[in-house]
C-alpha cells in the first residue's frame, strides 16, 4: 500500500468520523427542540426589527400589526424550512456546519461587533491555539530534557524526585493550579497580570502589542508547563528505558559508541513516533482542558467563549463550539496519522505495529 492510498483511506475514515460527530450533535440539539427554539426566536427578532423600522406600519391598529407580523413570521419559517419536521432538515444543518455557517449568536458579539458565530469563533480560535500549543511544546521540551536526565540513572535520586513530582502534578487540575498561581503571582506578589489577553487600552504599536500579549501569557504558560512537564519527563524516561532493552542499543553499545551517542542518535530517535503522538494528543487534551483554564485566566479564547455562551445561554454559540472542537480534534488526529505514517514506515506499508 502506498503512502498516498494510506493517506486517502485515513482521511476518508476521519471525515466520516467528523460527520458522525456533527450529526450526533445536531440530533441531540434538535431532539431536545433547542435548534427549533433558537431559529424561532431569531425569526421573531428579525420580524420585530423589520416592522419597527417600517414607517408605513406605524399607522396600523394593533390587530392589523399582529396579523402582518404573523404572516411575516410564517413566511420566514417556511423559508427556513421550520414547517418541516426536524429530521428532514438535518442534512441542511449538517451542510451548514461543514461549511462553517453557524448562524447568528443571540447575545455574544465579536470585538468588531459582528454577531455571526463564525466571526466570533474566528476571532478567539487563534488565541486558544497560541496559548495551548505553546504550552504543550514548552512542556514537551522541558519534559524530554528532564526525561533524558532521568533515564541516565534510573532509580537514582533525581529519577525518584521527578517521578514523585510527576504523580503529584498529574493529580492537580490545571485550572486550580492556575487559580493558585494568580493568588500567588498576581495578587500577593503582583509580578504578573492576573488575567486577560491584552492590556486596556490596547497598545497600537504591533511590537508593543506582541510583548503585551506575551506578558499576559506568562502566567497561564507557567501553569500549563508546571502541571504537565512532570508527566512528560516520566513518560519519556519510561520510553527510553524500554528502548534500552532492545537489541539495536546493545549493538550500538557493543560498537563502542559513547553513551551520549547511544542516547541521542539511537534511543531518542527510536522513541520519536510515540513522542510525536503524545505531543499531538496532549495538544488535543489541553484544548479540552482550556475551557476552564481560560475562564480562570480570563483568556479570551475558545474556552472562555464556551463558558460565556453557557452562562448567557447563547445556544448557537454552544452548538458551534461543540462543532469546532470536534473539527479540531479530528484535524489533530489526521495530522497524527500523517506524521505517524512518515515517521514509522511499518504503518504505511500496512505491517503490524502491535509488536
Amino acid at each position, binding site marked *: 500500500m502506498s503512502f498516498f492510498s494510506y493517506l486517502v483511506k485515513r482521511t476518508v475514515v476521519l471525515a466520516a468520523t467528523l460527520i458522525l460527530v456533527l450529526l450526533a450533535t445536531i440530533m441531540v440539539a434538535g431532539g431536545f427542540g433547542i435548534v427549533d427554539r433558537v431559529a424561532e426566536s431569531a425569526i421573531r427578532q428579525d420580524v420585530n426589527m423589520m416592522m419597527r423600522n417600517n414607517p408605513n406600519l406605524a399607522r396600523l391598529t394593533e390587530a392589523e400589526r399582529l396579523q402582518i407580523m404573523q404572516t411575516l413570521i410564517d413566511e420566514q419559517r417556511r423559508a427556513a424550512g421550520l414547517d418541516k419536521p426536524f429530521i428532514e432538515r438535518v442534512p441542511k444543518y449538517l451542510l451548514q456546519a461543514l461549511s462553517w455557517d453557524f448562524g447568528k449568536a443571540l447575545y455574544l458579539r465579536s470585538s468588531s461587533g459582528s454577531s455571526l458565530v463564525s466571526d466570533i469563533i474566528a476571532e478567539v480560535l487563534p488565541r486558544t491555539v497560541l496559548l495551548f500549543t505553546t504550552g504543550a511544546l514548552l512542556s514537551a521540551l522541558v519534559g524530554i530534557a528532564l526525561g533524558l536526565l532521568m533515564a541516565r540513572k534510573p532509580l537514582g535520586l533525581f529519577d525518584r524526585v521527578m517521578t514523585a513530582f510527576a504523580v503529584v502534578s498529574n493529580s*492537580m*487540575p490545571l485550572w*486550580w493550579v492556575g487559580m493558585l498561581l494568580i493568588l500567588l503571582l498576581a*495578587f500577593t506578589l503582583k509580578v504578573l497580570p492576573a488575567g486577560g489577553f491584552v492590556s486596556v487600552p490596547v497598545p497600537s504599536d504591533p511590537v508593543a502589542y506582541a510583548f503585551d500579549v506575551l506578558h499576559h501569557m506568562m502566567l497561564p504558560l507557567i501553569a500549563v508547563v508546571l502541571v504537565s512537564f512532570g508527566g512528560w519527563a516520566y513518560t519519556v524516561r519510561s520510553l527510553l528505558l524500554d528502548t534500552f532493552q532492545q537489541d539495536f542499543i546493545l549493538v550500538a553499545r557493543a560498537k563502542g559508541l559513547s553513551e551520549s551517542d547511544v542516547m541521542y542518535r539511537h534511543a531518542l530517535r527510536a522513541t520519536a513516533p510515540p513522542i510525536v503522538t503524545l505531543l499531538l494528543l496532549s495538544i488535543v487534551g489541553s484544548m479540552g482542558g482550556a475551557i*476552564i483554564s481560560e475562564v480562570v485566566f480570563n483568556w479570551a479564547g475558545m474556552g472562555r467563549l*464556551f463558558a460565556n455562551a453557557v452562562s448567557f445561554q447563547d445556544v448557537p454559540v454552544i452548538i458551534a463550539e461543540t462543532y469546532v*472542537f*470536534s473539527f*479540531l480534534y479530528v484535524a489533530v488526529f489526521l495530522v497524527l496519522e500523517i506524521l505517524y505514517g512518515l515517521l514509522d514506515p511499518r504503518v504505511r506499508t500496512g505491517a503490524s505495529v502491535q509488536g
Partner: protein
Amino acid sequence: MIQVAKEKPRVQTQKNRELAEFVSQFRQSRAGMVGLVLIIMFVLLSVFVVFAYPYQDVVKWNDVREWTNNPPTAPPFWVKMFSGKSLPETQVLNGSVARRYGIENIYFEDRVLDMSFTYDVPPAEVLVSIDVSFQGSSPLIELSWIKPSGTTITILRKAADRSTEGPPYAFSERLYVFIDQDVKSNMAGYMMSTYGAFVPVSSISVANVLFGEESPRVANASSIDIEKGIYQLKLHLQAYDPSDKITGFSAVVKGTVWGWMGTDVWGRDLLIGILWGTPVALLIGALTSVLSVGIGMTIGVVSGFYEGTIGEILDRTTDFFYMLPVLPLLIFVSFILRPSIWVMIPLLSVFGWPGIAKTARIITLQVKQEAYIEAARALGASNLWILVRHIAPQTLPFSFANIALLVPGYIFTEASISFLGLGDPVLPTWGKILGDAQASGATIGGYWWWVLMPGMMIFLVAISFALVGNALDRIVSPRLRRRA
C-alpha cells in the same frame, strides 16, 4: 465424581495463592499503601459526613439567606496563629432582660446586651436585630453603644414605622451598623460634638469610632488601637401605650475569621460544602470508572475475540468514541440535560471507555493465541465458555488497575462541569465551590482559603487513587508482558 471433588479445592488453593501473592506485592509498594490508607480515610470521612450533616444541611447550604449571620469571606480561624494578632470570632448576643418604667402617659423599656471584646482588630460587622410591637402612635427607639471606658455613643434614633398591618403593628429592623448611612451620620455628629472634628460621612469608619481608643482622628485612621473590655449595646424604647414592647433584641458581632475552612462571599460555612463534596466526588469517581471499565472491557474483549465483522464494527466504534472531544461534548449535553449525579455518572462513562477497550482488545488478541485456549477448544468448549471462563478473567487484574487510574480524570471532569454551573443542581461539589470562587473574584480578591481548600481535596482524592492505580499497574503490567 470423586476426582471432580478433589479437583475443586486445588483450584481454590491455586487462586488463593495468586491472590496472596498479589496482596503481598501490593503491600511492598509504599506509595500504593499510602494511597490505600488515604482512600479508606476518605471513605470513612464520607460516611461520617452523611450522618453528621444530614441532607437538610445541604439544602440549607444552598440557601444563601440562611447565612446572613456569618461574616462574608472570612478566612478560617487558624490564621490567627500566623497573624500574630488576636482576631475576633463571631459572637451572638441575646438574652437581654427588659426593664420597664414610665411617667404619666409615657412608657419606657430598656434592654442591654453585654459583650466582652479583647481582640486586636474590630469585627467585620455588627448586625443588630430589633423587633417592636405597638398599638397606635409610633414609639421612639434609641440604640446606643457604651464603651468599656463609659463613653456613650448614639448609634440610631428613630420612630418605629409600621412594617405590618395592625394594630398591633410590628416594627422590625435589621441594622448593619458598619455600613448603615444613618449610623454613619450619627458617628459624624458624635465626632463633631465631642472633638469638634469634622469628618465627611463618606470617609467615616463606624468600626473605628465604636471600637477604637478615644482620639480626634479615630474616625478615619488607617490603623487604630482597640479599646478592650466589656461593651454594652443598649436599646431604649419610648412608647405611648402600656402594651407596646420590645419583642426581640439581639446582635451578631461578626468575626474576621470563621470556622475551620472560612466562609464564602455569602457567609456560608465552607466546611459543610467541602465535606459534602467528599462522598459526591468518591461516588462519581468510583461508580463512573467501574462503569466505563466494564463497558470498555466487554467491548474490547468481544471485539478481540470475534475478529470478523463483529470485531471490526466494535473496533471502529471504539475508534469513533476515542476521537470525540469529551469535555466540550459533555458540557454541551450537560447544558441541555442539567444532569443530577445519577445522570452524570452514566454520561461520563459513555465517553470514558474507548482507551480501556483498545487495551482489552490487545490483551484478548494475545491470550487467544495461547495453548490452553486451543486445548479448551479441542475439548469442545463453546466460544462463550472460553470467553467467560478463560479470557475475561485474564483481563481482571488489568481492570482493577484501570478503575483506580481512571478516577482522578473523572473527578477532574465532573469538577470542570460543576465549575461552569452545569453539575448536580443540589449537591455541593468541589468544582461548584471553585466555580463560585472564580465568579466572585476570589483569585483577584485574595480569598485564598476559598480556592485552596476545595482544590486541595480534589488533589488529595486524585493522588490517592493515582498512587493505588500505579502500584496495581506495576504489579499487573509485568504479568501481561510476561504473557506476551
